């Protein structure tokens, strides 16, 4: 039970929710108290997830820190949680991102109480998904993680200007593309559509396994009929794939992430998209080995489309947040490609990329938020020469960018390299080439943006004259994220060690490991 009898995963999961309740009941009209409670609650989660990370016994492997309490014995629903190497890494990622997210959005002014309460509730959902070992519980947490987003974007978001041109211009005008209400609605509808698939899939598995238990571990033992496997896997892929941003179901992501407030973008692009990939790997591949083999060619091929298409789209954007959002689409391609290779290196790379991309995209959105807060603009080609005024932000942006383009000694490289190795060893070795080309395209758009915004002559007058650098609490977020990027880039074994203990059993079940 837990760690030395302490239900540590429960603590990690529910600490943010406790913070949210506390905020709603005690901290009315005390913005500072709201932030402090949020920082403490997420700080507890971060601290405990580091403890769990260190305490994880790599030799024993499997799910550890196991807890189980029966909830509805009649239907076989229980509060059953535990963590293996993959979950651990993602729990740590979540904790890091939300902790820095609280600091990066220190300046949210309007209704900060409700903002933080919703944000923390959402995080509880995310933690819950990563540690759930009961499919029903998994789905509950999943919805908890997805739904508050509507309010967070709809109320605290920002709107962008999209010029309604092209053949469907009237449709763009009519639906109000670019407005935060549009973004919130689009994101919610897409993700709810996805969860409908997931729910059907989960129920189908529940029925196929005898209808007596939602337990993941019990379902792992059940051998599902090949037909069930094939179609349920497709349901999972479609459902989770929406959240993972697979092409062509990705378009909620740029609009949603661009409109969302800083901490929400960080969390959503940094962690929630991983939720989708995690779902595919954990439920899809973990429970449906034959289904996986049926669809793996499709997954990998779409992933390569994601990589190239996302990078090219990112290059075409003029709004900084859209660039970052599309880069997420591109990088999620690496995650899914790695998983689709069904090789040790590829799967490790996939999970590592979930972590690496989470951190770097969190850093990016934090920075974009800061730049926007100071310059009140996200139009890349209107900015220029910010490096002299905000060297700290410029440095952090460069670090994030370098990780994004897969520069060695950053976490991004390790993930991409492992994925490359896996891709060439997979049954579709041609996947390697678009993946490698994607890194070049990333280099093109990232450095172009860095050059345009931070380099060049500093503006001597006008609206961008004399902007301040990041300060105070904001540095906490930036330094933490940069540190993690470089640390895991230089010592990847920190993450690969635990990940490997979880991917090997998975590959064994998939028959891809002797």
């Amino acid at each position, binding site marked *: 039970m837990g760690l030395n009898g302490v239900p540590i995963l429960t603590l990690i999961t529910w600490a943010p929710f406790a913070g949210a309740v506390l905020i709603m009941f005690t901290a009315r009209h005390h913005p500072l108290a709201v932030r402090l409670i949020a920082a403490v609650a997420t700080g507890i989660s971060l601290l405990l997830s580091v403890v769990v990370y260190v305490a994880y016994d790599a030799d024993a492997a499997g799910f550890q820190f196991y807890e189980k309490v029966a909830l509805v014995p009649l239907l076989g629903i229980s509060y059953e949680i535990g963590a293996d190497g993959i979950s651990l890494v993602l729990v740590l990622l979540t904790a890091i991102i939300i902790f820095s997210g609280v600091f990066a959005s220190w300046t949210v002014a309007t209704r900060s109480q409700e903002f933080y309460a919703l944000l923390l509730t959402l995080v509880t959902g995310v933690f819950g998904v990563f540690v759930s070992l009961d499919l029903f519980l998994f789905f509950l947490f999943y919805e908890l993680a997805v739904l508050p987003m509507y309010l967070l974007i709809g109320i605290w978001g920002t709107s962008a200007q999209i010029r309604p*041109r*092209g*053949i*469907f*211009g009237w*449709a*763009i005008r*009519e*639906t109000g*593309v670019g407005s935060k209400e549009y973004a919130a609605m*689009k994101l919610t509808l897409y993700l709810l559509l996805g969860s409908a698939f997931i729910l059907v899939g989960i129920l189908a598995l529940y029925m196929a396994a005898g209808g007596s238990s939602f337990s993941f571990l019990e379902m792992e033992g059940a051998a599902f009929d090949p037909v069930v496997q094939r179609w349920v896997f497709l349901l999972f892929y479609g459902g989770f794939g929406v959240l993972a941003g697979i*092409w*062509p179901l990705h*378009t909620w992501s740029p609009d949603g992430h661009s409109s969302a407030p800083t901490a929400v973008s960080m969390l959503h692009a940094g962690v929630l998209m991983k939720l989708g990939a995690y779902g595919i790997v954990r439920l899809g591949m973990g429970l449906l080995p034959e289904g996986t083999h049926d669809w793996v060619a499709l997954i990998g091929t779409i992933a390569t489309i994601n990589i190239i*298409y996302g990078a*090219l*789209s*990112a*290059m*075409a*954007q003029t709004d900084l947040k859209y660039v970052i959002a599309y880069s997420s689409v591109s990088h999620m391609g690496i995650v899914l490609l790695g998983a689709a290779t069904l090789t*040790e*290196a590829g799967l*490790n790379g996939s999970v590592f990329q979930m972590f690496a991309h989470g951190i770097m995209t969190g850093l990016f959105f934090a920075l974009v938020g800061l730049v926007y807060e100071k310059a009140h603009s996200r139009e890349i080609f209107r900015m220029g*020469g910010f*490096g*002299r005024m905000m*060297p700290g932000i410029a440095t952090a942006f460069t670090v994030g960018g370098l990780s994004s383009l897969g*520069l*060695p*000694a950053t976490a991004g*490289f390790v993930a991409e*390299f*492992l994925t*490359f*190795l896996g891709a*060439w*060893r997979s049954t579709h070795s041609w996947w*390697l*080439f678009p993946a*490698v*080309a994607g890194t*070049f*395209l990333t*280099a*093109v*758009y990232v*450095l*172009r943006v860095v*050059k345009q915004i931070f*380099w*060049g*002559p*500093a503006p001597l007058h006008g609206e961008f004259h004399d902007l301040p650098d990041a300060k105070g609490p904001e540095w906490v977020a930036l330094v933490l994220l940069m540190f993690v990027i470089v640390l895991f880039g230089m010592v*990847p*074994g920190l993450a*690969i*060690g635990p990940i*490997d203990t979880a991917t*090997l059993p998975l590959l064994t079940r998939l028959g891809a490991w002797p």
Partner: protein
Amino acid sequence: MIDAGTLALAALGLPFGAFVLLAVVAPLRRAGRAAGALSVAAVGGSLLAALILWRTFPEAGADTVELAWSWLPAEGGALATVGVLVDSVAAVMLVLVALVSFLVQLYSLGYLEDETAPALGRYFAYHSLFAFSMIGLVLASNFLQMFIFWELVGLCSYLLIGFWYAKPEAARAAVKAFWVTKAGDLGFILGIVLLWAQAGTFGFSELFKMADDKTLPLGGLSLIMFLIYLGAVGKSAQFPLHVWLPDAMEGPTPVSALIHAATMVAAGVYLVTRAYPLFLQTPDVLVLIGWVGAFSALLAATLGLVQADIKRVLAYSTVSQLGYMMAALGAGAVGAGFFHLLTHGLFKALLFLGAGAVIHAVGTNDIWKMGRLFGAMPQTGIVFLVGTLALAGIWPFAGFFSKDAILAGVWEGGLTVPFLMLALTVFLTAFYMFRVVFVVFFATGHAEGHPHDPPLVMGGPLWTLAGLTAGVGILFAVGGGGEEAHGPSWISPLSLGLALAGIAFAWLTYQRRAVSAEMLARRVRPLYVAALRKFWLDDLYGGIYRGVILGLSWVVGWVDRYLVDGLVNLASAWTMRGGDRLRRIQTGRAQDYLYGVAFGLLLVIVWSYWH
């Protein structure tokens, strides 16, 4: 006696420590000169370690020393390791890197004295990172680690070219350098991945052993080695990826001396040298390397003829000399190529630092705005002349011996056409370098301001390098090098003669004005125009960038916004419109709704007829 592994790690660790300190301790970095002192001290330590290592190495026991730690864990042993691999090549290269780094950093303290303290701190942080990365590259024990440091030196190059990031040209040049080398690196990483799939390891030692035992699967190895060579093409500025190097001259001159002349650009040559046992398995790739090298040498020499910017002349000469080294490697004269790498590292650093002293004094890069500087700055003139003579390949300077060895090697290797190209390049090299020397130091013209010799902190490194350039050559002249022995005896006179002819022609043209440069240009007008336009390669790449990449991205962006997302919005808009239409049924009049009730009643009744 400290063992070789420890020394290597010390050489590697000191600059890294300095970099971490400078990166993390902001007050130290913002202190400027203190940061410089720390960085110089660290790289000085590295130099010391490198020298000890070099002197003691052959006695250290085995002829290679290897240390390795697991880096990427995997089931059943590490997937990849990091470590150091020291052999005689690495030891010598280590000395060169540490030495030039040390001298250049020292020189920078004087050269960049006008910079603000934070900028200076940043500069030295980058330099420390570069020293660490370059030493790491030299000591890398496997392909993956080499790639890691390979990219890191690329990063430093990018950051240092863009050191004056407020200058739009510098910003553009930095990004261009990164992109072009990255394009080559795509090949490198593909090659590594494929090689790993083929051989199951990244390690040099294991791979060489497999090559020795003939257990290395040869299928596809040509492709793999070609891909790895592509990395070297980008980094070592070989045709057709040489275009970034001249633009990289936007960086501070010491940076050009260190990174874009002596060390980083030689990394490609070092890579081929390092992996030579593998390249030996694929003779077709080697031939290609030889041809590309010779062609790059010739092409860059012609480009060097028309430049007005002193640093650009030197940049093209770097491309040209790198071509020599590659040609030697391609022809099998690996010793000669590596030897030229070392001597070139010394005299090209010298030339750049000398040029830097001139630029520092005059305030411009344009050679036509200089003239008669020898009188004003004789020390600079002398050391520059030493460097130029070495570069031109005049006995008894270092360049003569290495270049001679290369020519002999290429001839012996049977690459006749490349040999002719290289021989022609000897003439052109002497011509364009002495063109610079005469125009800048001797010919009429006047420079603005009051040029004077640099202070000691800059002069010291200059004289050190000049001494080494001359000293190494004299050492060979007296002791007789091992490399030039096995060529036909006519090669030395030929190359010396060609070089002297080039000098003489330059003297006639630019000193005596006996030959009109304009007339020469008119004679070979197509070539002249082509050289001025850099053989349209930059235009081609610009076109690819703007037309293909940006064009494609525009198309994809459009498709995404207006088709992929557009269809979604269309469905959404149709739903909204449909709702709007349907809304009008709701007239709000109760009686109209009753019609609905009546129809419903009718339906129920009619439906009941069938039941």
